[in-house]
């Protein structure tokens, strides 16, 4: 079994790249891989808890929490979060906040990196 790191930079609602990333993470973990996720740029929108699960909008909080409870590491970019007004107390349980160097360090040991850089 291997280790897969996903770097995601897309907004919660919009390109659906976050939806893609969580479903890919789910499939990876189902196959026994370790999955790490770095959320930066507009993807730090995941770092605000209490998102209402309306059917008209992408909603990934539930799946993310489920995957974190099964061992997925999720870390969000601290500066990107603060610039958007998301503070420590906004973070969903289990999620970490760190500087970008956390992500850079992950690239060393991970077997594969899928970096989704755009919106």
């Amino acid at each position, binding site marked *: 079994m*291997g280790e*897969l790191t996903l770097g995601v930079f897309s907004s919660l609602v919009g*390109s*659906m*790249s976050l939806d*893609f990333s969580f*479903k*890919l993470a*789910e*499939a*990876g973990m*189902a*196959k026994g*891989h370790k999955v790490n996720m770095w959320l930066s740029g507009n993807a730090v929108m995941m770092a605000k808890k209490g998102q209402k699960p309306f059917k008209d909008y992408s909603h990934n909080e539930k799946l993310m929490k489920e995957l974190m409870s099964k061992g997925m590491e999720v870390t969000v970019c601290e500066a990107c979060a603060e610039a958007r007004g998301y503070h420590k107390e906004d973070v969903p349980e289990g999620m970490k906040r760190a500087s970008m160097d956390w992500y850079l360090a992950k690239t060393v040991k991970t*077997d*594969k*990196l*899928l*970096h*989704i*850089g*755009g919106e």
Partner: protein
Amino acid sequence: MMKLAVFLSDWRRTEDSFERMKAEKMGVILVGNGVYHAVVKENGKDSPVLSKAGANFYVLSDDLTTRGFTAANVNSKVKIVSYGDIVDLIMNDYEKMAWI
């Protein structure tokens, strides 16, 4: 040379690195609105993406059906895959990924 998986998530493309990149083994994985490359024939022609020489083409089934398309619409060059299949492509078949 390398084993490279390129992810395309958009229909209109404005960057041109894709045409220039070379790999010993190249997979082109169509996800999100990239699935239109597998099913839409603009002016009766296949998407130029599908003419990338030597590449293996894959399209994510879930993203096809989300947009109203099915296996019956998919270009014969392109293999339909699941999320699990994409995990296998990443972990077993390719060394490096480029989401462009």
